[in-house]
């Protein structure tokens, strides 16, 4: 199945802005994060189709996964 992954801010560096990826059925967000070699703590804010999601969320065909690093300064 195909999913679209969007990376934001620092997560793009050395990776990509947006990419359509071929994945196995039942893949979870954590698998994608691992595949992209994103340190877990840097994948702080995760949305699937604009809904907040967690590492264990199962992805489905056509999903758009958006991953943001934590931004906490003031």
């Amino acid at each position, binding site marked *: 199945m195909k999913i679209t992954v969007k990376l934001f*801010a*620092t997560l793009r560096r050395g990776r990509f802005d947006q990419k359509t990826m071929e994945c196995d059925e039942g893949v979870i967000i954590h698998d994608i994060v691992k595949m992209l070699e994103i340190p877990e703590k840097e994948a702080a804010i995760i949305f699937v189709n604009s809904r907040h999601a967690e590492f264990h969320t199962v992805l489905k065909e056509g999903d758009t996964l958006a991953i943001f*690093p934590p931004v906490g300064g003031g």
Partner: protein
Amino acid sequence: MKLLHDFLRTHAVNGFITFSNQEAAVMKFGLSFPEVEEVILSIDLVPERYKKNQQTISRQQQLNLFKSCVAVVGCGGLGGYIIEELARIGIGKIICIDPDVFEEHNLNRQLHATLTTLGGAKVAAVAQRVGEINPAVTIIPLQKAFCQENGKDLLNQAHVVIDALDTIPIRLVLAEVCELMNIPLIHGSIAGWYGQVTTQFPGDRTLQKIYSGCTLEKGVEEQLGNPSFSPALVATIEVAEAIKVLLGEGTTLRGRLLSINLFDMEIVDIRIEG
């Protein structure tokens, strides 16, 4: 009171009262600047300083802002600009909360950090600055660290709270306290070229959703630092949000996370559902 009204009406030019006349009214009637400002606005006159607020802010809205209290939690990079803008637009009461003193590494971005304020309390510098801009703005400087225990007391009078904090766990505490106290919260945070803003109303729990599962104290700003422009930009958006919430008009970032990337010059607006 009629004498004060007559004085103000006589000295108004096209509906505007200059600061020197406002000051003259303070002296003549033995009132404070905030008291005179409220009277000016309540008899449909406007202090000259707000001339360029109109038509963006109507006379009635200017009075609404004067009667509003905004709490700014954090007086560093974001907070400095936020308080400056709140004071200039005419918010009547601003509560400033920050336990820290200015340090040299604040000079690159924090509006009130100067060679003369180094080592001094941030809230004291901010209060002095607001007094220099407009003595009709009541500023309440609280040199305290916001926390679960004192949160309710510190935010007691606030109609809107603006997040200008610099750690993630305290932001979540702030979100919970605002939820408990039924106060809208404007969230903003920065890291290097990046920033984000959202507006949450009681019951939305947007911030809790955004940072759900995030156990970090600091975000990527720990590596990236913060330059001069990202706090100014994010602070400005936060103030615009606060003004719309106070006036009950316009479209806010409720249920949306505005993610700002100044490096790639990309601003995205993500809807946050469920």
